């Protein structure tokens, strides 16, 4: 009985737990335990949903019993089951980590608010992923965005406030653009249900209004996913947010935005319109390649490692855009694989930096001289995550880059493959800077000695590190899931 309502529970459970967390008020630890349990429950639901669609089926859920297109429909297929899995999986790792991490970084009286916002953000992200209604997507997008702005502003540094404000301005412009785009689509088709939209858009033919709507949606979603050059909000937001927030949004928020982009391009507009009529790949490939090179180089010069990782995130988004822009099943598979894999590697990297922040108070590279010997597990996790970002075999980074290069060569576009490899080489340099500081430099005599981070921080970090290796060695699950999702998106062969 209850299993029939799983798609709704996926979103409703964290949404209802959020105000409960707030009401628990000064019983902060209770709020933390509640939110951790909720995040685990979300993971279980996502696993169950993924299990139900693993054979290529679809789950339709009509909200409140109102049949679509009048009511809001939740729809699960292989594409969003994968995204649900990664978002709730990352959340299930982050919530246990958060308690110790925020003790040093967030004021005690704001901590109930912290868990409330984290749960709202989780509910919003899961909702964006699962919904089959274009307007519902906008509302859930704003739920997750507003809670993200709040979470970023909880950072101790006062620059967190300006970073949050900048993100609020750019994020709201992006969301409003999406709203305009949805409005134009509604004017043209008279429906908001995604399946109906895709049916009716095919019959419109050449229409200036449709092209305008497409443009608004691409720019709006592009702002949300930090598509180069719309990424300017991202580095400061990730650098000054509390560590666990950086880790959570780096691993999930942009991934969900990439999912929305794929959903709009392939399911709603259809590959025919997006690529043959609008030639959107001529925007994605240059933007993606410039992001890979330019932001990787900018990352080299950052002294705050969290900001370095933020720039690296923009570069990784570039790889996903290139994958989408290659307009082939292999390319899309590579983009979706990288979506999944990048969440694992950036999660691990940001969590290890959170552990460094817990002991050192900041993540400046100048203070990290010689800590490799004093915090071996933490820095070991960073090195492992770094290897994955570079794309060393046996890590997940290798799998997605391998598919991306395959897809580029399949089209005969070897310069794209060269730039992808070049991006990896630059990643070697920025990861090496940290390795050099942490392992090869001597700890200065006047610097305070640091201890290894507590187990409550190390265990979640290493769970993600091990996931990096597990899905790097046995990629049959991820590759199978993504390639069959990609085939479906391109229309059954």
């Amino acid at each position: 009985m209850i299993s029939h309502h799983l798609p709704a529970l996926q979103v409703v459970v964290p949404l209802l737990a959020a105000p409960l967390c707030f009401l628990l008020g000064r019983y902060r630890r209770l709020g933390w335990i509640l939110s951790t349990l909720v995040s685990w429950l979300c993971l279980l639901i996502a696993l169950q949903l993924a299990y139900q669609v693993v054979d290529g089926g679809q789950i339709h859920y009509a909200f409140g019993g109102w049949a679509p297109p009048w009511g809001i429909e939740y729809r699960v297929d292989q594409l969003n089951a994968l995204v649900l899995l990664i978002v709730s999986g990352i959340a299930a790792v982050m919530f246990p980590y958060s308690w110790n991490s925020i003790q040093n970084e967030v004021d005690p009286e704001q901590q109930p608010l912290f868990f409330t916002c984290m749960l709202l953000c989780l509910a919003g992200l899961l909702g964006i992923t699962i919904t089959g209604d274009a307007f519902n997507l906008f509302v859930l997008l704003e739920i997750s965005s507003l809670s993200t702005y709040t979470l970023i502003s909880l950072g101790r540094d006062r620059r967190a406030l300006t970073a949050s404000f900048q993100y609020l301005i750019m994020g709201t412009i992006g969301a409003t653009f999406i709203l305009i785009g949805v409005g134009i689509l509604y004017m043209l088709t008279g429906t908001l249900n995604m399946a109906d939209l895709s049916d009716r858009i095919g019959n419109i033919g050449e229409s200036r209004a449709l092209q305008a709507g497409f443009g608004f949606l691409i720019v709006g979603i592009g702002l949300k996913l930090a598509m180069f050059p719309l990424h300017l909000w991202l580095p400061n937001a990730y650098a000054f947010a509390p560590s666990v927030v950086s880790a959570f949004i780096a691993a999930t928020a942009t991934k969900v935005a990439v999912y929305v982009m794929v959903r709009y391009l392939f399911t709603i507009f259809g590959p025919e319109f997006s690529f043959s009529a609008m030639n959107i790949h001529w925007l994605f490939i240059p933007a993606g390649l410039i992001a890979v090179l330019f932001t990787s180089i900018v990352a080299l010069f950052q002294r705050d490692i969290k900001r370095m990782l933020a720039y690296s995130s923009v570069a990784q988004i570039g790889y996903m855009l290139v994958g989408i822009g290659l307009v082939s099943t292999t390319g899309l598979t590579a983009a979706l694989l990288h979506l999944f894999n990048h969440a694992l590697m950036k999660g691990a990297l940001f969590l290890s930096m959170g552990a460094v922040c817990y002991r050192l108070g900041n993540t400046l590279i100048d203070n990290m001289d010689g800590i490799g010997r004093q915090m071996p597990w933490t820095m070991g996790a960073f090195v492992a995550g770094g290897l994955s970002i570079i794309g060393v075999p046996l890590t997940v980074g290798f799998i997605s880059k391998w598919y991306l290069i395959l897809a580029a060569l399949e089209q005969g576009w070897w310069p794209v493959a060269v730039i992808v490899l070049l991006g990896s080489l630059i990643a070697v340099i920025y990861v090496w800077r940290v390795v050099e500081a942490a392992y090869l430099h001597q700890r200065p005599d006047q610097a305070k000695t640091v201890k290894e981070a507590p187990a409550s921080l190390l265990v979640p970090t290493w769970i993600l590190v091990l996931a990096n290796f597990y899905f790097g060695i046995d990629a049959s699950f991820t590759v199978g899931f993504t390639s069959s999702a990609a085939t479906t998106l391109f229309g059954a062969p």
Partner: protein
Amino acid sequence: MIAFSLFNYWIVIILMMAGFYTVIASGNLVKKIVGLNIFQTSVFIMYISMGKVIGGTAPIVTVNTELYSNPLPHVLILTAIVVGVATTALGLSLIIRIKEAYHSVEEEEILAISQQEDESE
């Protein structure tokens, strides 16, 4: 008369551009929020206008009427207005905290202070 039939949409475009310009060009954080509000309001008007069916009455079931305006966009935009209010509230409260932390709401001054902090790290 034809020029007036699209009157609402002309207003939408004018408001949209005015708001968007204010967000980008203004250095004062409060003015940015005001601009953002105007920008969002233009979209609300766009949604409200598209619900109008020429010759249709208000969507309340009565005898002797057969043509109604479409109420759905109006309902949608109620939600969007709530979202807009929440965004404005959050933006203004951030400005208060920025004012407390930096003693300024001018973007240039805040940027200069932040850059000094970046370099002195």
